[in-house]
């Protein structure tokens, strides 16, 4: 009797039984268990159970009756079957686009369905015309999902589990063990970052995943959440955003953009024009970090001029004068 056949029969048996079946009952029923001697049957059964559980098949152990003398096994239908999600064909098609767009090294072309392909097929069973996953994808994204630390950290973030890992910060050669409450995973500029509370420093830090040098392990053994994420925490941390992004207490700065680039500023940054200066377009931005803003606006070269307020304008002029100085004078100015 083939192993897969034995396992299919075992699942069918445990899924269809109304009461828990004892080990003996299972042995006497399933083809493939009878011919073994008892101890090798027992090993085989234990292994089968463990493997089925690793696939997510919920084999439960329960007392066979109210007297609680004997124990047996069954699979609860509620926990086995995929719940009805009532996904529409449009929703499934959208999930297919998301799933197919990801570019990963070693992604199988024909060599077997991906895990999430399988998940999508499950979800779309019974639906007619639920997207066409076989047409060539026109939309792609590079998301670095092959990052080795990612699966464990996703689980940790989802389950709020404290983690430990060795980390080598940028610009240093020595690595150190960190214990972190993982709050969020952020993908930016081609790499994943973990945002979380560093237990030793008791402060929120960002860790670049490629700089994690060890396996990520859970700090506790039980699977209960280890911490709560502070309500004021946001995955869109301001250390990552451009300085013109304003909040309360920000300075309002008026900047003129040349006709060459004004369209880009309006289109990409969503800044609405508030007037003109010569044939340039004036926009207003709220600035919390003036120094960062000066640097940002200078990145537009000759296509942006700060108009108001004077303080920010003077800061731009100072930096421009520094950049216009010949190198020799620069060196002297510093000493």
């Amino acid at each position, binding site marked *: 009797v083939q192993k897969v056949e034995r396992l*299919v029969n075992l699942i069918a048996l445990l899924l*269809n039984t109304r009461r828990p079946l004892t080990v003996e009952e299972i042995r006497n029923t399933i083809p493939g268990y009878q011919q073994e001697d008892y101890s090798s049957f027992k090993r085989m059964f234990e292994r089968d159970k463990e493997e089925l559980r690793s*696939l997510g098949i919920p084999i439960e152990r329960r007392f066979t009756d109210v007297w609680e003398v004997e124990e047996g096994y069954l699979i609860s239908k509620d926990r086995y079957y995929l719940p009805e*999600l009532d996904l529409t064909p449009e929703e499934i098609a959208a*999930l297919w686009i998301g799933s197919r767009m990801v570019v990963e090294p070693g992604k199988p072309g024909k060599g077997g369905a991906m895990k999430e392909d399988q998940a999508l097929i499950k979800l779309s069973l019974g639906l007619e015309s639920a997207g066409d996953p076989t047409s060539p994808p*026109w939309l792609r994204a590079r998301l670095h999902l092959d990052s080795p630390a990612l699966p464990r950290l996703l689980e940790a973030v*989802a389950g709020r589990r404290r983690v430990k890992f060795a980390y080598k910060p940028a610009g240093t050669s020595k690595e150190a063990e960190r214990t972190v409450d993982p709050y969020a995973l952020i*993908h930016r500029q081609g790499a994943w970052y973990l945002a979380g509370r560093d237990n030793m420093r008791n402060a929120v830090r960002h860790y670049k995943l490629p700089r994690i040098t060890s396996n990520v392990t859970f700090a506790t053994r039980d699977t209960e959440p280890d911490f709560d994420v502070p309500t004021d925490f946001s995955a869109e941390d301001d250390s990552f955003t*451009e300085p013109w992004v304003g909040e309360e207490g920000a300075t309002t700065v008026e900047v003129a953009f040349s006709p060459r680039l004004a369209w880009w500023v309006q289109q990409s940054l969503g800044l609405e024009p508030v007037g003109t200066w010569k044939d340039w377009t004036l926009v207003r931005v709220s600035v919390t970090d003036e120094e960062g803003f000066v640097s940002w606006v200078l990145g537009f070269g000759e296509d942006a001029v700060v108009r108001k307020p004077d303080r920010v304008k003077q800061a731009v002029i100072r930096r421009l*004068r520094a950049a216009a100085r010949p190198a020799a004078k620069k060196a002297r100015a510093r000493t």
Partner: protein
Amino acid sequence: VTKRKVSDAARRSLSRLERVLLLVPYCVQHPGVSISELAERLGATEAEIIDDLNLLFVCGLPDYTPADLMEVLIDEDRVYIRMADYFGRPLRLTRTEAIPLYVKGQALVNLLEGTTNGRGGLRELAPLRSALDKLGRALLPQEGGVAELTKRIKVQLESGEAQYLELLRDAITDHRAVDLEYYTYSRDALTRRRVEPHLVFASVGHWYMSGYCHLAQDKRMFRLDRIKSLELTDDRFEAPADADSELPPPLFYVPGPDDITVKLRATTEIAEWLSEYGGAFPPLPVQSSRDIRGGKRELVFRTSALEWVEKLLLRFGDDIEVLEPVELAERTRDAAKRILALYQRPRKK
């Protein structure tokens, strides 16, 4: 709870078992499905599917008499499975299935969010959001984890929102060329060009389109946020055999024979920012770096154009210095003077 490692041989039979556990509900819910469709959908060969079906002939319930076994019927190429209603619905999603599906969907939502009025967006965004919502609420409720992920996973775009996506989808699927006005940041130039679009992709924080450019007479990439205007033409083209092969490497710097070596000296803080982050551009393609006295670092990288480096240098005034090439130092100083002039004589011209 102890978990022993599952051996390789066991893993092979388990992945076959997973396929079988999906194959049965598939056939129950789609009576008369073809073997080739099953193979395609389940990522297996037709021979493997036939093996699986042969195995199912002997599976069922006690007492395993013909009346208790599943009924598997193969009529020409069509498959019917009966007497297997208990396998009519598939096994719920496992964590290893649900989490990647969720992350990818969430990533696409993030990449499409904030799209500009009317020009951006993708018709899939709304259904994608509702699909993730349903998934999150219904899956693994006892762990509560998957729903949490929406708030805890972000894929960030650096600048430039997705736009023209629907137009580009039409252009790519119908093989129609587009006319664009495009701003090349690295060379600081606005040009008109006709492009045969092959692929749209997000990478290193930006949306891009790749395709054949008639102006360059070669394959090129275009950042979507730098497209000033885009129009669909009736000019048809032949689609490439494998558009995916045009995907660039993760970092966009591809060395060319005429590239210039740039050597900068900056404070360690700025040097780190440039090589790790880079702001509106990908991080600098640093070839070598060296810490020197006074909290400074020297960076060496190569580039095909100096215009963008010049603007990068303007951002940091005194805190960055050009060691090589001399030409770059001069043109940065000149640019600074020209911008100063804009501030000093604002109302003339």
